[in-house]
Structure formats: structure tokens, C-alpha cells
């Protein structure tokens, strides 16, 4: 048990890697065996992550389940894992969606089955690693590791225009991450000012949190990080790779892409940009809020006119992620918690929506909305589950989306009422595009004869959707256990960015964060560079 507890994060991260290695063994050349083994590793991958839910101390400060080993000491690079409440929830989401992604491919993938599952499992490694890594090089390695399997998943098992989509996805995000790497390196060179790291520097996030970063450097690094993360989110105007990638990706690819991969960007902001660069964060609030709001409204309007179901859901993701970013840059605990909760919510409901679309695609080999209509009659169970997920996605109370949205909007309103005025239009449009889609697919008479003989979803498909539906209700009715993960880290993050502003004993809103004083350019180990007192 102790071994498990001490190495929990490594086990969770590399379990799928073990799976991928096993799948490469000769006996698994057979598709049936490969499928069975992949599902085994999917399910067990989720099970090994479950201790996080029970063992994570929701009241504790700082990072937990920390593992730290030297890796390249001469450059200050270490194998450093550790999580807080944010990463804990995202890891659980990743292992859950990973399991579902593998399971939902049961009958959809018949071509090159083994390599498909190997890529899915490798993708899993990269994603979990990103959420665990506390060393920036380690983080960057996992970040890039994710790209490759996704590229192949889209490029090999995707739709007709898959190569264009795959290359667009790959290059777009690669450009972002290279610039992000520059930002990381800039901070690394800064870390040589830290006492004890004069020779080697360090890539250790916990050390970086203790160093003051001068204002102008903060601005530049924020911009570099921004490009990397904003493309991944994606924020307007970097969003056009997403609809293409989604329309072309296989179902599991879309589920993972929407459910987890997009959260890499938002996670990056929460984990790195905000705490490391509080001064720059405050400077960029107007820009970030504006882009988020444009994203919400712009993408919602574009969603309305889509004729392809998957593209519709993809554009709706852009709108939803706009909410996530807006809540985050409200920079108050309620907005931040709502933002992270909405990351989870979006993963559940939009992940579910891609499964829903995938199920129909498997039956009819089209995602064109106009090819359907009247399906409620022939597929009642499917229609019901779809409606639940639609309602979750549009933020109906007692389903998960509402809790996240109301917290985000509350946070946005408290920070700047104007933001909330604009952002609420997103919830009107959200209802509009989803209900219109629902009407066109499920209501009315059956207009295409081939739809008359459609089979309702089978037990396996119901099992695929059930965990998501249950979680949607759980978070909607009783979100407390989930929010408990976020209370502490988000309160600390808000305090770090705007010290004193959320002290309940304090008076009316007065405190405005001071920029970190710009220390003079000094030789190494100048005493002027003291650890950040806010830490």
C-alpha cells in the first residue's frame, strides 16, 4: 500500500504505457486480443487513479503525492510529480474518458486495431503526465508526447479530409508550444538568480513560485505562454483548427480531444501563467476577458448555422471554453473554482455529445443534420440520453453545466458586471443551437426512409454513456465533493494574484495587487531577489 501511495502518480501515468508495450507483443497482433487488452488497460487505468479521490487531502496546502528524483541535475531538470485539487480532478477525468474512449471504439475501429489502441494509450500517458508534472521540462516533454499519437489518430483513422486536419492540428499546436518553450527557457535563466541554483538553474515549478519575476519579463513570458495555451484552449482567433480536427477525428479521438486535450490550455493558464506571472496576469485581464467573451458569442453564433453535427459540437466547445477562460480571468475564487469545475463539466457533457454523434455515425455513416429527423420514434433511449446531455451542456439546473456556469458568471459579474452582461447571451444561444439540433434530429416526422429501421442503442452503448450521465447529475445536484478539491487551491491562487482582496475580514474592495517590483539587473545571488512573500 505504501508503495502504491508513494508512487501513485507515476503508476497512474505509466500504466497506459505498460499497456501500449504489452499490446506490441506478438500475441496481440490479433484484433480481438488487442481490443480486449486495451480495454483491460483502460479500465484498470481508471481504477488505479481512483485512490486519488479517496486519498487526496482536500484541506491540505500545496502539492500532494509528490515524487521527486534527479534527472539531469546539471541543467536543474528533475523528475518531479505532484498534484493539487485541480490536477487531481483533471487526472480523474482523463482516466475516465480514456477508459470510455477505448471502450467506445469497440465496433467503430476495424482497421489496424492494434496500432489504434497503442496510440490511444500513449496519448493517455502524455495527458496524465502533463497534469502531474511539476518540472517544466518534464511538462514540456509530456505536452509534446500528446501531439504525436493524436496526429496519427486523426491522420490514419479520420474522415475524408483527415490529412489537412491532422497537419493543421499538429503544426498549429506545435507553433504554440515552441513559443511556449521560449517562455519556459526565459524563466529558467531567471531561476539562476535563486540562491542555491546559481550554477545549474532549475526547471522546478515549486522553486519558480518562490522567485520574483520582473514586470517586463512577466509580460513577455505571459505572451509566450499565451500563444501556447490559447491555441490549445482554443481561444478566439486561434480556434479554427478545432472544428477541422473534430470533424475528421474518429469518435474516441474527438472525445479525448474535447474532453481532455482542450483542458491542457486552460490548465496551463491556471497552473503556470496565473501563479508565476501575477503582475502580467492583471495587465492582460482586459484582453483575456475580451477574447473570452468574443469566443463565447462568436462561436455560439457560428454553432447555430452548422450543418454537420460534429462541427456543431466542436464550435459549441469553443463557446464553452470561452466561459472557462472568462471565469478564470475573473480572478476571484468563485470564478476560478467555477472555471475548473466547468473544465470537468465540459469534458463530461461534450465528451458525451461526441459519443452520441459517433453512435449515429456508426449507424448511418453521415453526420449531416439534414439526413435525420424523427429519430425519437425509432430510438427512444438514445433520444432520452441525448436530451439529458444536451440539457447538461446548455446548463440546466440540477445538471452539471449549471453549477459551473452560474459560478463563472457570478465571478465575472463580481469582477466586472459588463462581462456578465455579454456572457449571458451565451446561455441563450446555447439553448438555441442545441434545441434546434435536437428538433432537427429527433423531432418531426421521419423524412428519410433509411432512418426508419435504425436500431436503438444497445447495452454496450448505454454502458458507455452511463458514467457520464450519472456524473452530470451528481455534479448538478451535489457538487460539494468536487468543489472541495478546488476550494483551497483556488483561494490561494486568487490570493496570490491579488493579495488581500479576498480576505473576508477585509473591508470593501480596495486592494489592488501591486506589480512585483522590478529588481535591478544584478549579479547572481543578489540579496534583492528574495523569495516572493506571497508564497
Amino acid at each position, binding site marked *: 500500500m505504501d508503495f502504491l501511495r508513494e508512487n501513485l502518480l507515476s503508476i497512474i501515468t505509466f500504466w497506459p504505457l505498460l499497456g501500449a508495450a504489452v499490446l506490441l507483443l506478438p500475441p496481440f497482433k490479433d484484433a480481438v486480443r488487442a481490443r480486449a487488452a486495451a480495454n483491460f488497460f483502460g479500465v484498470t487505468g481508471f481504477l488505479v487513479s481512483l485512490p486519488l479521490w479517496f486519498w487526496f487531502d482536500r484541506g491540505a496546502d500545496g502539492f500532494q503525492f509528490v515524487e521527486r528524483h534527479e534527472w539531469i541535475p546539471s541543467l536543474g531538470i528533475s523528475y518531479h510529480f505532484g498534484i493539487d485539487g485541480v490536477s487531481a480532478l483533471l487526472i480523474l477525468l482523463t482516466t475516465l474518458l480514456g477508459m470510455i474512449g477505448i471502450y467506445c471504439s469497440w465496433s467503430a475501429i476495424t482497421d489496424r486495431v492494434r496500432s489504434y489502441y497503442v496510440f490511444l494509450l500513449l496519448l493517455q500517458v502524455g495527458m496524465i503526465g502533463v497534469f502531474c508534472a511539476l518540472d517544466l521540462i518534464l511538462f514540456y516533454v509530456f505536452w509534446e508526447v500528446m501531439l504525436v499519437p493524436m496526429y496519427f489518430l486523426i491522420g490514419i483513422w479520420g474522415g475524408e479530409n483527415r490529412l489537412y486536419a491532422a497537419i493543421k492540428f499538429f503544426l498549429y499546436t506545435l507553433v504554440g508550444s515552441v513559443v511556449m518553450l521560449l517562455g519556459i527557457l526565459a524563466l529558467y535563466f531567471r531561476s539562476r538568480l535563486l540562491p542555491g541554483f546559481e550554477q545549474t538553474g532549475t526547471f522546478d515549478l515549486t522553486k519558480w513560485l518562490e522567485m520574483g519575476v520582473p514586470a517586463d519579463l512577466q509580460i513577455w513570458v505571459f505572451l509566450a505562454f499565451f500563444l501556447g495555451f490559447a491555441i490549445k484552449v482554443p481561444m478566439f482567433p486561434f480556434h479554427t483548427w478545432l472544428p477541422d480536427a473534430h470533424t475528421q477525428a474518429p469518435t474516441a479521438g474527438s472525445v479525448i480531444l474535447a474532453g481532455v486535450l482542450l483542458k491542457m490550455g486552460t490548465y496551463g493558464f491556471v497552473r503556470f501563467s496565473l501563479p508565476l506571472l501575477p503582475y502580467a496576469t492583471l495587465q492582460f485581464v482586459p484582453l483575456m476577458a475580451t477574447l473570452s467573451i468574443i469566443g463565447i458569442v462568436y462561436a455560439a453564433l457560428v454553432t447555430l448555422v452548422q450543418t454537420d453535427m460534429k462541427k456543431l459540437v466542436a464550435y459549441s466547445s469553443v463557446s464553452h471554453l470561452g466561459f472557462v477562460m472568462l471565469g478564470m480571468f475573473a480572478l476571484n475564487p468563485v470564478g476560478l473554482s467555477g472555471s475548473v469545475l466547468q473544465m470537468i463539466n465540459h469534458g463530461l457533457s461534450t465528451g458525451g455529445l461526441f459519443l452520441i454523434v459517433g453512435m449515429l455515425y456508426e449507424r448511418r455513416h453521415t453526420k449531416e443534420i439534414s439526413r435525420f429527423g424523427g429519430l425519437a420514434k425509432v430510438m427512444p433511449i438514445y433520444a432520452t440520453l441525448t436530451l439529458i446531455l444536451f440539457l447538461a451542456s446548455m446548463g440546466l439546473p440540477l445538471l452539471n453545466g449549471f453549477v459551473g456556469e452560474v459560478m463563472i458568471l457570478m465571478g465575472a459579474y463580481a469582477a466586472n458586471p459588463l462581462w456578465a452582461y455579454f456572457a449571458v447571451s451565451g446561455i441563450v444561444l446555447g439553448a438555441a443551437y442545441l434545441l434546434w439540433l435536437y428538433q432537427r434530429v429527433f423531432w418531426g416526422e421521419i423524412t428519410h426512409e433509411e432512418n426508419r429501421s435504425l436500431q436503438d442503442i444497445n447495452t454496450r452503448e448505454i454502458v458507455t454513456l452511463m458514467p457520464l450521465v450519472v456524473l452530470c447529475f451528481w455534479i448538478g445536484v451535489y*457538487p460539494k465533493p468536487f468543489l472541495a478539491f478546488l476550494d483551497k487551491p483556488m483561494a490561494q491562487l486568487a490570493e496570490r494574484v491579488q493579495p488581500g482582496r479576498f480576505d*473576508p475580514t477585509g473591508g470593501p474592495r480596495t486592494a489592488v495587487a501591486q506589480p512585483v517590483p522590478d529588481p535591478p539587473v544584478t549579479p547572481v545571488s543578489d540579496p534583492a531577489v528574495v523569495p516572493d512573500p506571497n508564497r
Partner: protein
Amino acid sequence: MSGYLFLIPLLPLLGFVLNFAVGTRLAKPKPFVTAVAWSTVALSLLLSIFAVIEAAGSPGHQIGQVLFSWIPGGMAETVAGPRPFAIDWALRVDPLSSVMLMVVCGVGFLIHVYAAGYMAHDPGYARFFSYLNLFMFSMLTLVMGANYLVLFVGWEGVGLCSYLLIGFWYHKQSAADAGKKAFIVNRVGDAFFLIGLFTLFVNFGSLDFATLTAALAGGHAEAGWDGPLTFAALMLFLGACGKSAQVPLYVWLPDAMEGPTPVSALIHAATMVTAGVYMVARSSALYVLAPDALMVVALVGAFTAIFAASIGLVQTDIKRVLAYSTVSQLGYMFLACGVGAFSAGVFHLGTHAFFKALLFLCAGSVIHAMSGEQELPKMGGLRKKLPWTHATMLIGCIAIAGIPPLAGFFSKDEILWLAFSHGGYGQLVWAVGLVTAGMTAFYMFRLYHLTFSGSFRGTHEQEHHLHESPKVMTIPLALLAVGAVTAGLLGIPAALGGSNWIEHFLHPAIASLGGHGAAAGHDGGHGTELLLMGVSIAVAAAGIGLAWMLYGSADLSRAEGLAKTFAPAHRLLLNKYWVDELYGALFVRGVALGGGHALHGTDKLFVDGGGGEVKPGLGVNGLAWFTRDVISKLSNLWDRYVVDGLVNLTGHAFDNGSYYARHLQNGFVQHYILYSAMGVLLLVGLTRLATY
């Protein structure tokens, strides 16, 4: 002893789950589904009665129950410093929710009974009742929620049920359209409602009714339009406009008549649409401090009342007439709230629930008898064939027309009197209300005569099938008719020797407007009040008389002549002022779809640079093309001529160099010695040079 409160909404929810999960799978669902649906609502009714009695006898006239901490959100900035956004799942019964509980459970139960007859032959019987139970859950949550967010849960929940039930016959395009329209228009209101909630939270640090009322009590009325209270009050009112179908968000309610008639009676007449009135009355402590917002409420209510009534004058679909009548009567309720007469508004809400539910169910009975026909011009002369329906509908019409001593008279007159005595804009809305009362009496009796008087105008087949509805439908009609006759007795004004019990009952839950207005009127002589009462009875009688003259006989030529004389006005009303067309062009095709297409084009053309391929141009594709085809070609050239050139040069240098160098290796020892000596000399020379 209030630990049972949670059962009141929970029981119908269980009914929903049972009927949806089990009932829809049964081969013969009727007995099971009916038993579940009726019994859960009946039990809720019993528990509600219990709760209402207990609350009335409790200190503070209320009981409550906190179930669990629902959204323990983090800190947010408020005017008074940071406060945690923490919302409990809490229920409460006070006089205001008591009235609502009685209306919702009482009328709701009767409609459940009626629906068992009305929907008996529908294949979606189980689905219908499960939705109806879900509606009861949501509505009860709405009226029992102890804070705005729990209220909002019910608020959105009833919206969902409304959507599902309007679109119950989803294979019909018109029903599907109407359901979607209802939901989306309501969402517009909900968005404003949320803004109102946030404003309240930021200003008071809480969304709990009791906390907010306490914080507001004794505050000073806000002068001017830019204060936070006025803003919050207006935002909440816009939310109410969505749910309670007021101008400008009323457009969904007439279309909602696509749903089965029991749904129209329960949701779109008696209960859900009154949620906005309930919410405004619930927020009375806020509204009395925001007189400007209150004036807007009164004016919008009055305008909606007369606007909808004018459309109702000429509609030919029996349910649409009733729908516009509902919009108009809801306007009356807001008119009341707007002059600070919240109790009178809630009183009218209660009486209206009885007579409008009755009217809808009667209309349903007529439609049932007419084999689904809803057009008034196809009816006529049904008095003899449908005696029960005729009698009860007549009672409903008299009640809504405002003829004493039926329910509508007391509540409507209370509103008109309080508006008049409010002074200022109150007298304007009084005048509008009076005219509306006359129009109401007219269109209701027009409907009555077109249905029951004269001779039958439908097909022979329809005539052949005419039949009175079964007992399961007529008994609820009779009970509702009793309510429509007697409900007004709860609020007999002092001028007529009554005690206005309802106002006293509601008093602890309702804030009153200070200074002039209601109280002053009550103390003074009753002369004016009695005079105005006489005026409004006369107006109602005039409306009834006119309707009788035009539509009372088999000969409708006078009415047709009138329509011809005023053809443009008639067309304007018949087409509902073309508001639907205007909204469609402006918001649906204009802003939403037009904007969507334009932005999608922007994405494709400008952001991506056109087409799903890498090609020269602007945007992402252009950038990719530039990277792939320009930079990479340039670097190819660079590689070939510069980098490779250097490499080749080096290679050539060694190649050729060694060609010459090999001559050194000629095998003559004396040559080697010579080279060695030259080398030594060279080295010595160089060392010498270096040391200088």
C-alpha cells in the same frame, strides 16, 4: 416539525422516475401510471395542506428546512467586501408560498384527474404523466425555494417541462417549433434574471429571501434609474416577462397551445406562467424601494393587458383566444404589483388559476367532443350536446368577465381600486385596466356564444360524434367551477363589509409601499370605491351585451359586417400586429442566423484564408502554405547551394588537395629527409618569429 417539507416536491419527482422508467415500458400502462401520478400529487397536496396550517400557526408565519449545502462556491467581491457565494438547498413555506402551494397542488391534482380522461387514448400516456409529474416537482421547488437560486432551479425546470409538453406530439412540426420557441424565449428572460441575481448578490452578499428582506427592510427608496436596486428589480422583471409572457417576451405563450389541453390549463394558465408574478411578489421588499422599476412593472403590465386583449378580440382558435386572455390577465397581475398591490396581484393569481384552468379544461372538453376541432367558426349550438361543459364554461366566463359575486370580480376590482387610489401613473393604468375589463368580457362571451349559441357550423361527421365528456373529465370541471364561484370570497373588500382575509393572510410575506396609496384608500370613505366598482361592473356588462348582440344568435352577419367596416384594424389584430414576423426577421433570421452565417464565413475566409486546404493567401492556410511552400523551398535552395555547397567545397578541397599531396609520398628517402629538415627549419623560424 418541518422535516417533511422536502417530500412535497420529492414525491412527484419519484412519480416521474417511476412513470418514466417503468410506466413507459408497460404494455398496458394506464392503471399503473394513473395510480402513480395521482397518488404522488395527492400526497403532495395533503402534505402541503399540513405545511400551510403549520406555517400559519408558527412564529413568523413560516417554516423552513435546509437540506444540504448545494453550491459552496468560493469568495466573490461584493459591495461590503468579499463574501462566499454559498447556496443552500433550502425550502420554506410562508403565507405567499402557502397560496401558491394550494393553487399548484389543488389545481394540479384536478388537472391530473382530468388528463386521465383526456389523454386516455394517447399512445404516449405514460410519457405524458411522467412529464406532468416532473412539472409538479419543478413548480413546487419554485414556490418552496428559500433562496433565488433554488427558485431558479424550479424556474428552469418548469421551462423544461413546458418545452417537453408543448412538444409532446413532437412529430408535428408546429408543436416542435412551439416547444423550442417557448424554451428559447424563456431563456432570454432567464439571462436577465441571472443578471438580477448577481446584482443582488454583489450588493447584499446573499441570495436568501429572508436575509435579503431583512437587509432591505427599512431601507430608503432609491431615486433615479441608475441605482443598483432599480437595476436589479428591472432585471428580475425581465425574467418575469419571459416566464409570465409579458411584452416584449410574450410571443411564446400563444404558440404553446400546441400542447395537449390539460397542459395548457395547468402550465400555461394556472401555474407556471404565474411564476413571474410570484417572483415579483416574493421580491416585494426590493420593489418597494425601487419606485421607478415599479412604475415600469405597472406600465408593462397594463400595456400587455390591453395589447393581448385586443388580439383576443378577433382570434378564431378557441385555445388561442384563451391564451391571449391569459397573457392579458397576467398583465393585470403585474399591473397590480406595479402599484404596490402585491397581495391583490397574488389574489388575482389565485382566482385566475381557478377560472382559467376551468375555461381551458372546458375548451378541452369541447375540442374532445369536436374530434380535435379548435376553430370557433366551425362550432356553435353545442349547449344542448354538452350540458356540463356548457354550464361550467358559462361560470368561467362570468367569473373572468368580473360579474359579482364570482371570483374574478373581487380580485379584478381590488386591483383596479388600488391602482386608482395609488394616484399618479396608477390612474393611467386604472383606465387601461378598465378598458381591458370591457374587452375581456366581450371576447370571452364572443367565445362562449360562438361555441354554444346559434347553430352548429361544423361537418356532419363532427356533428355525429358530438358527445359530453366522461365523468373523469366533468367532475374536475365541476370542482373548478365551485372554486371559480367561491374563491373570491377570500378577499371581500371592506367596502362591501368583508374583511379582505387574503390580504391579511399574505401581509407577513409582502412588503408594502409606504406613504400614499393602498392604506389611505382603505381608511377613507368607501364612496369612491363603491362608485368605481359600479363603473367596472357596467363596463363588463357592456362587453357581455355587445358580444351577445353580435354573436348571440345563429346570424353572424353583424359581426362580419363590423369586421369588413374596419378591415385594416381587423387584419392587424388577426395577424397579431405581425410581431412574430418582426421578431423572426429581426432576431432569428437577422441577428442569430445572419450573424452566424456571417461569422462562419469570417472563420472560413479570413481566419482560415478559405477552403479546407493549404494554399497561398491570408489566414491559417496561407501561413501554412507560406511555411510549407515558400520557407521550405527557400531553405531547400539554401541547403542545396549554400550548406551543401560548403560541404561539397570541403569535399572537393580534400579530394583535389590529396591529389596533389600524394606526390609527396614518392618513396624516395632523401626527399623525406629534405621535407623533415625544411619542416624543422620552418618550425624554428616560426618559434623565432613568435618570441619576438
